[in-house]
């Protein structure tokens, strides 16, 4: 039991560490940002989770097209849903952060717009799934759309905002990661936070997949 579920315990511990450490440990004093820099541990990892869950979703979509196994479609759907959840959370936490640093919840920043479009693409995925009557066709076509969506999503999130001036740190050519303000004290919490949130994202998706599996078994009884 412990062998199989160690990563869930790890996720819980990392998230607790993020919350407690993120709120108590010392952070660098920066102008404007002040204490809101702590949001780094919550806002930024959300996008890591969305990229990874959306990628996993696209991976299972490809596997579905190869093997025609309905469970891969369920996996693809639930990972996409988890991606949407974390995308929305990332956007909300980003908006809160923007309110206290940039002055408004929504300032039409290129990254804000791009992420809103990205979330729209994935909402389109859910709408598309609702428009089918034939199950097999639904699985196949939504897998196709999912792969296309991921192929558009990656340049939308990573390349497009870098080309235009943004309020986000590290824009204008250099990635936001090695930006001046991510010093070693922040890294101490930031990296565990990223891993912890990713594990939580996978956990959410996995719970939903198991739920669907259980429903299928009950239906077949």
């Amino acid at each position, binding site marked *: 039991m412990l062998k199989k579920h160690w990563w869930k315990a790890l996720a819980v511990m990392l998230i607790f560490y993020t919350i407690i450490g993120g709120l108590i440990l010392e952070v660098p004093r920066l102008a404007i940002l002040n204490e809101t820099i702590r949001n780094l541990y919550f806002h930024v990892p959300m996008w890591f989770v969305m990229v990874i869950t959306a990628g996993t979703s696209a991976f299972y979509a490809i596997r579905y*097209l190869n093997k025609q196994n309905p469970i891969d479609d369920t996996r693809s759907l639930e990972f996409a849903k988890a991606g949407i959840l974390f995308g929305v959370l990332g956007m909300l936490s980003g908006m809160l952060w923007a309110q206290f640093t940039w002055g408004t919840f929504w300032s039409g920043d290129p990254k804000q717009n*791009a992420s809103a*479009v*990205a979330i*729209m*693409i994935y909402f*389109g995925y859910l*709408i*598309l799934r609702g*428009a*089918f*009557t034939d199950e*097999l*066709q639904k699985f*196949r*076509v939504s*897998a*196709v*759309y999912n*792969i*296309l*969506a991921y*192929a*558009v999503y990656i*340049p*939308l999130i990573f*390349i*497009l905002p870098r*080309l*235009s001036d943004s309020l986000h740190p590290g824009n204008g050519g250099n990635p936001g990661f090695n930006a001046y303000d991510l010093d070693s004290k922040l890294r101490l919490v930031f990296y565990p936070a990223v891993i912890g949130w990713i594990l939580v994202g996978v956990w959410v998706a996995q719970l939903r997949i198991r739920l669907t599996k259980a429903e299928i078994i009950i239906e077949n009884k």
Partner: protein
Amino acid sequence: MAILALLVYSLVLGNPVKDLPLFIVNVVLGASGFAASLSMVAGIASKTNNSAALTAILGFPVVLPIILMSVKVSKNAMDGLARSTSYDELLVILAIDMIVITVSYILFPYLWRSN
């Protein structure tokens, strides 16, 4: 078709574009990107019961990056700015075009199979 539209418009309304070659390259790249992604999305939507509405819903976010980039390059071309300012955007449009065309080319057989 986009080139044709460009010709007609410049005939009727006059041509304010200062850097025509750049503009034409941009038009061609943007139009092929539109064609590729909208065909793919229309193909996806045609498999559903309510295809007309779904094409619009699914297509808009997919073409939005191309629209944004082309608008920027067109503006540069119209104002006759130095070409080096538009290379980044052109490269991105080209990259998105190639990604969408490649992905569509691979995925289309799966989409169109009757079962």
